[in-house]
C-alpha cells in the first residue's frame, strides 16, 4: 500500500476515534439541560465524562497534527478556508473545556452548564457542516486557496450534514448516559435514546445517500444504517451495552462513508483541475515514512492506556449526592 493511502486511512481513523469518543461527550453536553433534574443529576452526568473528555479531545488535535504533517496542503486549505466556522468551533471548545474543569470548583454551576451545553452543541453541528462541504467540494483556485465565503459553506446539504452529526452525537450521548448511570437519570436517558434513534436514522441515512460516492462507500452506508437500526433495537430491548456498541459502530461507519466518498481527493474543488488529492497534497515520502514509524509504535500504546482508563472508570454513577475527588 502506498504511504499516502496509509496516511489517508490513518487520518480517517483519527477522525473516527474523535467522533466516536468525543461524540458522546458532545451528546452529554447537549442533553444535560433536558435529562438532568437538580444538581446531583447534573454532577453525575458530567462525572460520566469527567475523567475522559480531555483525552478524547486529543484525538482532534492529533488528527489536525497528522494532517499538517502528512498532507500540509490539505491542512492549509481546510483551516484557512473554513476560517469562521473553525473560529466558532474553537470558542465552543474553549468554553466547554473550561466549563468541564471549573464547574465543580465554582460556587454557581448555572453559567458553566450553559457554556457546556453551547460548547457541545456548536461543534456537534459544525463538524457535520464542515465535512459535508469537504466531501461535496468547495471553490478553490489554482493555488488551492478557498475562494468562497461563509455563505458558500452554509448550503442546504451542509446544514443537513450538521443536523446529522448533531443527532448522531446526541443519540450517542443518550446511549452512553444510559450505560454509565443508574436510577431515574438512566431512565430518562433511555427514553431520550428511544426518541432520538429513529430521527437520527432517517436524517443520517438521507445525508449519507446525498453525499456518498464511489463503490466502497455503499458498504459504509450499509453499516451505518445497520448500526443505527441496531441502536433502535437494543434501546428498545434495554440492552445498554449493545446500544452503545451499535451507535459507536454507526458513527464509525458514518465517518467511513465520508472518507471513502472523498478518496482519492482530500479536498475536491468545484473545478476538478484545482482539487487537492492524496497525491498533490501529501508530504514527501521521507516524512511519511518517519511518521508511519512513529504512528506504528505509539498508536497501540495510546489505545491500550485509553482503553484501560475506560476500564478503571467503568462503574455506573448515580444522581445521589456525593463528593467529587479533587475539588
Amino acid at each position, binding site marked *: 500500500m502506498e504511504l499516502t493511502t496509509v496516511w489517508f486511512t490513518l487520518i480517517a481513523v483519527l477522525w473516527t476515534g474523535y467522533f466516536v469518543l468525543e461524540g458522546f461527550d458532545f451528546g452529554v453536553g447537549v442533553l444535560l439541560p433536558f435529562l438532568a433534574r437538580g444538581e446531583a443529576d447534573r454532577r453525575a452526568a458530567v462525572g460520566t465524562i469527567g475523567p475522559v473528555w480531555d483525552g478524547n479531545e*486529543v484525538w482532534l488535535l492529533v488528527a489536525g497534527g497528522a494532517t499538517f504533517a502528512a498532507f500540509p496542503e490539505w491542512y*492549509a486549505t481546510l483551516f484557512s478556508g473554513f*476560517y469562521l466556522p473553525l473560529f466558532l468551533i474553537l*470558542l465552543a471548545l474553549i468554553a466547554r473545556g473550561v466549563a468541564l474543569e471549573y464547574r465543580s470548583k465554582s460556587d454557581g454551576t448555572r453559567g458553566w452548564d450553559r457554556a457546556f451545553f453551547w460548547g457541545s452543541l456548536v461543534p456537534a453541528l459544525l463538524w457535520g457542516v464542515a465535512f459535508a462541504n469537504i466531501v461535496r467540494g468547495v471553490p478553490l483556485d489554482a493555488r*488551492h*486557496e478557498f475562494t468562497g465565503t461563509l455563505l458558500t459553506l452554509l448550503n442546504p446539504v451542509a446544514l443537513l450534514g450538521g443536523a446529522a452529526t448533531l443527532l448522531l452525537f446526541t443519540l450517542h450521548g443518550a446511549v452512553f448516559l444510559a450505560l454509565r448511570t443508574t436510577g431515574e437519570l438512566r431512565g430518562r436517558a433511555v427514553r431520550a435514546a428511544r426518541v432520538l434513534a429513529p430521527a437520527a436514522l432517517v436524517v443520517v441515512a438521507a445525508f449519507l445517500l446525498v453525499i456518498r460516492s464511489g463503490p466502497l462507500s455503499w458498504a459504509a452506508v450499509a453499516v451505518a444504517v445497520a448500526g443505527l437500526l441496531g441502536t433502535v433495537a437494543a434501546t428498545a430491548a434495554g440492552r445498554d451495552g449493545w446500544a452503545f456498541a451499535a451507535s459507536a459502530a454507526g458513527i464509525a461507519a458514518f465517518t467511513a462513508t465520508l472518507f471513502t466518498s472523498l478518496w482519492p481527493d482530500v479536498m475536491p474543488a468545484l473545478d476538478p483541475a484545482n482539487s487537492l488529492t492524496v497525491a498533490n497534497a501529501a508530504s514527501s515520502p521521507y*516524512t511519511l515514512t*518517519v511518521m508511519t514509524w512513529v504512528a506504528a509504535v505509539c498508536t497501540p500504546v*495510546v489505545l491500550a492506556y485509553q482503553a484501560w482508563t475506560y476500564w478503571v472508570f467503568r462503574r455506573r454513577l448515580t444522581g445521589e449526592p456525593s463528593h467529587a475527588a479533587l475539588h
Partner: protein
Amino acid sequence: MDVLDLSRWQFGITTVYHFLFVPLTIGLSVVVAGLQTAWYRTGRQEYLRLTRFWGRLFLINFAMGVVTGIVQEFQFGMNWSAYSRFVGDVFGAPLAMEGLVAFFLESTFLGLWIFGWDRLPKRVHLATIWLAAIGTTLSAYFILAANSWMQHPVGYRIHDGRAELTDIWAVLTNSTTLATFPHVLFGAFLTAGAFVLGISAWFLLRGRDVDLFRRSARLALVVSLAAGIGVALSGHWQAQIMTRQQPMKMAAAEALWEDETSAGFSLFAVGDVENGRNHVNLQIPYGLSLLSTNTLDGKVEGINDIQARYQALYGPGDYRPVVGLAYWSFRLMIGFGALSALLALAGLWLTRRGRVPAGRWAHRAAIAGIGLPFLANSLGWIFTEMGRQPWTVFGVMRTAAAVSPGADVASVAVTLVGFTLVYAVLAVIEVRLLLKFIRIGPHEPEAEAEAATPALAY
C-alpha cells in the same frame, strides 16, 4: 492594519497568553508529583495535604493551558496557510509527534490522577501524575523542536517550492533545540518555585498552617534557586548559539551597531535607528565579547555590518528587527529572571538553619515576586520571535510571505478581537478561582486522607 499585522498581533497575543499557563503547568506537575512521592514513601499527612492543595491550583491552571493550546495548533492553518504549505513537510512532523506522544499521555493520565484517588492503588495512582508530568515535558520538547527549526532550519532541502524534511534526527537534535529546551524547562521550574513560594508566604503572613507552608516555602526556595542557576547557564549557552546562528538578533539585543572586538555589555542605551547608532550607551567593558565568545577580545558583529552582509546574501531589504524592542525585551527578561533567583537566594539565607525572617517585608516580597518569572517568560518569547523578524523561518521564509493569502481583514479582526475578549474574561475567572482555592487553603488531614482512600464513591 492589514491582514499581516492583524495575524501577527493574533499570534502574539494568543501565544504569550498560552505561555502564561504552560510553564506553571510543567513546573507544578513535577512539584506535585514530587510531593505525592514524598507522601507515598513516608506516609506523612502533611505531604498528602500539600499534594492535594497544590494539585488543586495546578488543575485550575492546567485547564487554561489546554483550552488555549487548541487555538495554537489551528492558527497555523487559519492565519498562516502559505507558511503551512511551505513548511508542513518539516514542521508538521514534530507537531504530530507532540499530539501522539505527549498530549495523549498528559490528558489521559491526568484524568486518571484527578478521578483515580479512590479508584487506583496508591502506587499506580502515583505513577499517573508522573506520566502526566512526563507528558507535559515531552510536549515542550516537541514544540520547541518545531520552533527551533524556525530559528535555525536544519535537516531539510528546498524542493518543488517547499521545504522538505531530509533528516528527522537533525530536526530533533537541532543545537538550538538542545539549548532552548533546558532554558524553557528551568524557566518553568523558576515559575513554579516563585508561585509556590509566594502563596506559601501569604499563608505564613497570616499564621495559617505554618508548619505546612514553611515546608513548601523552603522547597520552593531550593527549586527556584536551582532553576535560576539553570536558566542562567542554559541562557548563556543559548545566547552563544544564537550569536552564531542569528547574529542580527544578538546585535539587536545589544544595540551593537558596528562590528566590535572587545565589545561591552550594554546596560542602558538610547538608540537612533534611523542613523544606526546610540546616543547614550552605558556598558560593562568587555562584557559582550566575553559572553558571546568566551574571550575578552572576541569579535561581535554589529547591526549595520550584518544588514550590509544580508543585503548581499538575500537581496535588497531591511533585515533589522525592531531594535528597541529586542534590546529591552532581552534586558528585562534577564532582569526579571535574575531578580526572581536573587529573591530565592535571599530567602534561603533568611531561613537558614530553621530561622524565621523577622518582620513582614520578606513575605511581601515573595508574594510580589510571583509575577517575575511570568514577565521573564513572556519577554523571552517576545524577544526570540520578534528578534527573528523579518523572517518567519530564518533565512528561508519571510513573515510577510507566510500569511494566508485568502484571509480578509474583517475575518482576522473578528477573530483577533474575539480571542482577546474571551481570553480576558477567562483570565479574570481563572485568577478568581485560584484566589478562592488559596483562601480555602489545605483541607483538614482527615478530609484529605478520606478522599485519597480507595473504594469511595465519586
